[in-house]
């Protein structure tokens, strides 16, 4: 799924959460969004999901403009997005299996297909033995895998992950990231992930967007392009 931000700003009264964001994320990209707390990372994800409406500017997902004026569009687009929250956002009185099934019921799959897909993703995230447990009976790692399973079940075109490793230990963090990376590489799903975990970011050679005070302070893809251009320029000079 392609994501385009054109001069997007978001303010809450006098506070500017995002200021003049211009951004393009291509289908199949794996992008890390990093930055200190309050930099605007979560606001960026919430605008993609239309939890927030931008104060100004335009956001396009696969050429569909996202705005609260077009509610039907938002519902259709949300069905193509898998979301993983730092606090998991699982429904507490539903089992792991029921939480996953709910996402599939929302996209309108028939019951038989729902059970097949639940089976598939539960095995994919190694939660088979925990499928009938409620969120309160799971560990942090298991909760995050359940949230990932729910996101994967809908076979999304885009996965938004807001600090998915925030509550996990090192081992669980690596396992989760490996799963997400495999999905990105195997299925071409676009991944946008906010994180503070520099070990993970540095270990994967992926695009990194750094945010500060609601603005993009650096974008690794642009830095790479500049380096490439500089290299080309120097080599042509030497010749």
């Amino acid at each position, binding site marked *: 799924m392609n994501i385009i931000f054109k001069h997007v700003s978001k303010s809450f009264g006098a506070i500017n959460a995002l200021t003049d964001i211009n951004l393009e994320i291509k289908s199949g990209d794996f992008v890390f969004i990093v930055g200190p707390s309050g930099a605007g990372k979560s606001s960026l994800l919430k605008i993609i999901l239309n939890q927030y409406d931008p104060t100004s500017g335009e956001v396009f997902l696969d050429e569909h403009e996202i705005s609260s004026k077009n509610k039907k569009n938002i519902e259709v687009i*949300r069905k193509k997005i898998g979301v993983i929250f730092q606090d998991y956002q699982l429904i507490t009185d539903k089992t792991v299996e029921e939480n996953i099934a709910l996402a599939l019921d929302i996209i309108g799959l028939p019951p038989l297909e729902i059970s097949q897909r639940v089976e598939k993703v539960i095995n994919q995230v190694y939660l088979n033995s925990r499928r009938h447990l409620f969120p309160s009976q799971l560990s942090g790692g298991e909760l995050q895998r359940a949230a990932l399973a729910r996101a994967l079940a809908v076979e999304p075109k885009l996965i938004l992950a807001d600090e998915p490793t925030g509550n996990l230990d090192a081992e669980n963090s690596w396992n989760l990231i490996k799963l997400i990376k495999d999905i990105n590489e195997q299925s071409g799903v676009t991944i946008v992930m906010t994180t503070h975990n520099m070990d993970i970011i540095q270990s994967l050679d992926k695009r990194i967007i750094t945010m500060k005070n609601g603005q993009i302070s650096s974008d690794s893809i642009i830095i790479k392009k500049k380096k490439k251009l500089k290299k080309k320029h120097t080599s042509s000079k030497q010749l």
Partner: protein
Amino acid sequence: MTPYKNAWHHIRRSPFQSLVAISVMAISFFCLNTFAVVSSGMTSILNYFETKPEITIFLKDGLDKSMVESLQSELANYPNIREIKFISKEKALALYKEQNKNSPMLTEMVTSSILPASFEVSVSNVKVLEQISQNFTAKTSQVEEIIYQKDIIESLLSWTNFIRKTGIIIVSVTSILTFLIISIIISMKITNRKDEISISRLLGASKFYVKKPFIIEGLFYGLIGGFIGFTVNFVLVLIYSNQINVFFNPIIFITQNYQYYLALFAISEVSASFIGYISSWYGVRRYIKY
């Protein structure tokens, strides 16, 4: 998970709230059914008297045959007369004995001489009775007493109207209370499930998708509450109808017509579901805005 399963899930997760909703609905529809049955009984009593307009003219003792015949021909001259029955003293005794055949003590000492002869006049227009009553009351030398049903009908009519009005007020008040209680319970459930609703919306659920289980829940309360209200009333009717009907004999106060109860059941279910639907819809409309 279908919306029906979801609604059932909500009901099971807060059984006391669900119990309150069903109980209030059941009480409301028990009142409605009871009122309907009593009201139908009152109508039966009224119809009984209204369709049998009669006046009974008791004659003084010692009137000769020609005098009696002259009174009878005078009565026959009134319009809308259906039947004029002369009950002689002997016939009155025979009727008295027939009515009290199970109490020989009451019949032993009675002779025809102590019972008055009378005319039983039935008409097809109640207004004629008024004229007969006025004219024959003036004949004090021939007429002993006149029994005219006007007073009974007027009294019955005022009781029927009172019962109907009271019934309508009770049913309206209980229906409004039911509406308020169910919409409050649904609102509380929505508040309890705020997270679930917002998560579902983030996953792409439409507003209708998240509202549907709550509306189904309201419909469920209506159907079950209406069914319980009707059933309790019907069971009481089955148990007590004979005793009540014996008391009102020959009028059938509690109808034995099962089609009437089938219609009452259908009306109860439809109106209970409607109240359940409207109240849950109101709760949903007020509280699901995200």
